[in-house]
């Protein structure tokens, strides 16, 4: 009987803890439990048999730590261990006399490493680690894949993808929550469910971390949001130390009683984790076997997620930030060309602060590697914002790359009615999960009537269904054409929107700003159209959250549409604000009586920029006469111990703001940097704030900095040195263990890119050690590096 067929009809019982049973059988502390499937086959088979005799349906193989990273040093490969483990489970199943349906689940535990950017394991390397063992387990005859004890959505995604890419077996996945319902890296059950359902697992739930009483608290919420059967595998209570051993206090009878409550509450697959024994499982099965299973209900909610948060498209119109899109944005174009990721991040964070719930991300610019840039932007943005992303490209390769690394369930922008596009995009949406924006355009172009656009929407929904993509995972975009090119354009869009909502029952979105293309005072037109679109039932609005008129329209319309009880949100936002054109309302930050030097010394960014703008001298004159002396004074005060690091950096920020203003007035040669410095935090090191401080100061003192980031291998430093030909390379390392990487990097530079000086810095270093490993200079603090750079470039 196939696992999925049984699952759709009956409750199923998992086994209990393996680790403690192995310890009872003689496993020593520090010994790998997984290896016992090879070295102590009888013991492992016997444990499986005990659980089967207790009545469980699913035995999980002894492969919790079966990845190359965890098996390193044992002398066994994941392939060997996986095959042996599945064999032991199959043998036990063959011998067991019980009449219940029996399945061998290939068990997948965490890799033991935190994924980048928080840790040092790259996402694709995690996928590779999981793939190696899952493939072997599937080939050895497992009935399903069971992913468990995940505390990070990114690692969870890597494991599920690996399972889906290695075999066609059913996939179950459980995560570990703390008592507040959060994963250790910050996710909640909404984010977990959205991710897992997007990846199309067959059942999901919780294991470990909590006892039955604590875990059951989350069952109602889980049942409410998921369309899948729910798995609960709690510990036998909360752990306690007694005489140097970890003990669990919930005995079999109490365990079974609590789990019966879970079964009555709709949990479909029940078992136990740490501290549970065959006695626990026996009691569990006896108590729950005859409880009629509650139906698993399909939910129709439209949802996307990031690592830590889910956004549901209901009850309000979702605000999607449009700013990270180079079309018409020359500063962003420049940033994308220069690889200035920090600029993109600042834009995204500004949109988040202004109220965006989802961030659009688009890197469509000729002359750059769109796939690489888009992927990098997605990877970096998701490290700093909690908001889900709307991934926007017309290039299927860029989609694959970006969707793969995205930590959550994204909005996929977009598909349209063209056959070739649907055939390219739908399989990706099916594989990686996401809510797909469907544009009502096809091979014949954009229909001029609302009915025409409705027809395309229908076509797209029908094709999507062939890929298993349901209506709830589609947002139809009825296309906003500028009113400047057609008087009827707005009306057609709005009619189409209403028609599509009414006749197809699907959610809608619009790129609202397009309405005003080609017109003066675009914001006004956009704001008005937004109001009309909201009235017509728009579910998701792609707009500029930093535009006052547009945001005013957004919030007032919400209140007018009855989505703002007692005008609470409106009042929270606008109460106490004077109208914009009364004089008292917006005092511009004037320069006052400050000089530019003073503004820099006091770290006053806005004043420094204003003073630089007003200054009469030539830009070079201002730089040489005002800014550089101010920075030198600040630097000297820092070195003397009267100025501290935050002040130094605030002064640097102020000077930078002044430079930005002057830059526009300088010729290319006037603005030329004094020299180039390549900076990197060496391989294996994840601390980079010191390097970032040096970078900020060097840029202030007119050096061009090529920042290679952190955890940089020696070869990459050499490559950068050969490409940029700097006279100076700066390396930082924080810990004793990565100083070795520093030594290797210096050696590589001496060998392959001689001719540049090398300076090093980092808390663990000393001048003495720096000299021993071949560095030319040891920067003991931030200013020292600047002084040395000035010396190297003969300043």
């Amino acid at each position: 009987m196939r696992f999925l067929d049984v699952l759709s009809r009956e409750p199923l019982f998992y086994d209990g803890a393996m680790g403690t049973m192995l310890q009872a059988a003689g496993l020593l502390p520090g010994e790998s439990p997984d290896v016992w499937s090879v070295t102590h086959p009888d013991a492992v088979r016997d444990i499986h048999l005990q659980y089967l005799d207790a009545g469980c349906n699913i035995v999980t193989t002894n492969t919790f730590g079966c990845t190359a990273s965890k098996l390193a040093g044992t002398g066994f490969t994941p392939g060997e261990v996986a095959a042996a483990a599945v064999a032991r489970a199959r043998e036990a199943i063959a011998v067991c006399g019980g009449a219940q349906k029996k399945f061998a689940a290939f068990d997948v535990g965490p890799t033991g490493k935190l994924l980048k950017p928080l840790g040092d394991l790259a996402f694709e390397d995690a996928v590779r680690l999981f793939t190696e063992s899952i493939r072997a387990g599937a080939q050895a005859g497992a009935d399903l894949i069971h992913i468990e004890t995940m505390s990070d959505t990114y690692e969870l995604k890597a494991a599920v993808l690996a399972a889906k890419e290695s075999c066609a077996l059913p996939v179950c996945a459980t995560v570990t929550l703390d008592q507040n319902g959060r994963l250790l890296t910050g996710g909640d059950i909404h984010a977990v469910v959205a991710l897992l359902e997007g990846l199309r697992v067959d059942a999901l739930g919780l294991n470990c971390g909590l006892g039955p009483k604590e875990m059951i608290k989350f069952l109602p919420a889980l049942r409410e949001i998921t369309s899948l059967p729910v798995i609960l595998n709690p510990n036998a209570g909360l752990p306690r130390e007694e005489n140097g051993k970890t003990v669990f206090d919930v005995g079999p009878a109490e365990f079974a009683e609590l789990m019966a409550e879970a079964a009555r509450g709709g949990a479909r697959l029940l078992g136990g984790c740490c501290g549970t024994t065959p006695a626990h499982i026996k009691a569990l099965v006896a108590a729950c076997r005859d409880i009629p299973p509650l139906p698993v209900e399909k939910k129709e909610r439209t949802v996307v997620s990031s690592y830590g948060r889910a956004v549901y498209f209901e009850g309000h119109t979702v605000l999607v930030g449009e700013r990270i899109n180079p079309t018409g944005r020359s500063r962003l174009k420049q940033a994308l060309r220069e690889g200035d990721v920090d600029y993109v991040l600042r834009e995204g964070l500004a949109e988040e602060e202004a109220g965006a719930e989802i961030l659009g991300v688009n890197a469509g610019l000729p002359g750059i590697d769109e796939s690489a840039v888009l992927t990098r932007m997605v990877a970096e943005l998701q490290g700093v914002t909690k908001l889900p992303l709307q991934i926007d490209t017309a290039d299927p390769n860029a989609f694959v790359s970006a969707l793969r690394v995205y930590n959550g369930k994204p909005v996929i922008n977009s598909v349209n009615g063209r056959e070739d596009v649907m055939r390219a995009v739908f399989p990706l949406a099916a594989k990686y999960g996401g809510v797909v924006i469907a544009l009502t355009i096809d091979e014949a172009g954009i229909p001029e009537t609302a009915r025409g656009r409705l027809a395309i929407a229908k076509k797209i929904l029908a094709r999507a269904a062939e890929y298993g993509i349901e209506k709830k995972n589609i947002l139809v975009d009825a296309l906003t054409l500028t009113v400047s090119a057609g008087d009827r354009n707005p009306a057609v869009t709005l009619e189409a929107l209403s028609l599509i909502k009414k006749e197809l029952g699907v959610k809608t979105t619009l790129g609202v700003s397009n309405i005003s293309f080609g017109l003066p005072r675009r914001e006004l037109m956009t704001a008005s159209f937004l109001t009309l679109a909201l009235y017509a039932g728009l579910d998701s609005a792609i707009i500029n959250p930093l535009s006052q008129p547009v945001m005013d329209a957004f919030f007032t319309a919400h209140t007018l549409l009855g989505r703002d009880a007692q005008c609470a949100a409106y009042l929270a936002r606008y109460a106490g604000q004077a109208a914009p054109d009364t004089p008292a309302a917006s005092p511009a930050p004037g320069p006052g009586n400050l000089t530019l030097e003073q503004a820099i010394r006091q770290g006053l960014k806005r004043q420094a920029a204003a003073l630089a703008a007003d200054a009469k001298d030539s830009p070079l004159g201002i730089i040489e006469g005002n800014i550089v002396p101010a920075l030198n004074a600040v630097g000297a005060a820092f070195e003397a111990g009267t100025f501290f690091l935050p002040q130094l950096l605030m002064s640097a920020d102020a000077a930078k703001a002044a430079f930005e203003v002057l830059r526009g007035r300088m010729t290319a040669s006037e603005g030329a940097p004094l020299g180039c410095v390549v900076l990197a935090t060496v391989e294996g090191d994840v601390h980079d704030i010191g390097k970032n401080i040096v970078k900020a100061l060097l840029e202030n003192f007119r050096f061009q900095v090529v920042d290679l980031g952190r955890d940089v291998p020696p070869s990459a430093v050499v490559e950068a040195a050969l490409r940029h030909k700097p006279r100076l390379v700066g390396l930082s390392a924080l810990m004793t263990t990565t100083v070795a990487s520093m030594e290797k990097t210096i050696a590589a530079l001496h060998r392959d890119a001689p001719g540049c000086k090398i300076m090093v810095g980092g808390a663990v270093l000393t001048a003495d050690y720096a000299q021993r490993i071949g560095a030319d200079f040891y920067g003991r603090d931030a200013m020292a590096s600047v002084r040395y750079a000035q010396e190297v470039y003969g300043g």
Partner: protein
Amino acid sequence: MQVDKAEALRYLGYKRGQTPDSATESVFNACIPALERAAGFLNIDRRFPVIREGDGIFIAGLNLQSRALSRHLEGCEEAYLFAATLGAGVDRLMQVYERTDLPAAVVLQACAAALLESCCDEAQDSIAAALAPGLGLRPRFSPGYGDLSLTIQPGILRVLDAQKRIGLFCTAHDMLTPTKSITAVIGVRPGCADKKRGCETCGMKDCTYRKE
């Protein structure tokens, strides 16, 4: 769970008696609430006998080769292995600041270090309070102090099952992630609890941050 501002200032190089200017003060006032919201302190500890074999010290089967540790644990028959973290939320906040506001990042760094230390002090106080009468705790001694190598960190995490219990991991180079975390050996011996001033036990006399 509150940030000890004086400690944070010390990490920023302020000597006793020196106070921050108003601009720096504002940065603190913004950072501290953000940090307190983002932080989720978790710790775990287990008590083991201390086994001495010649020059070596063995705790929970781990070979903690270190003369400095050996001296530090003189008179201790047992010791706690201790691990703690402020959690991934703080690392994320650090990333945001580093990308957008470097002065705030530097202040946040100092506040986080101070917060971690005070949370660990509190946790250590709880352990001390539960000891049998007549026993006290030595100051924390962490990998990286003296000649106690960082390479024992993975072992400590494994013994404490820190990954699963508090979400604390090690990189390939034995660095803790999330980054605002520590592991430590805390000796147990007869007598009162020692004042928790780690600097006294440290050999780096010329450290800029040495507590006076």
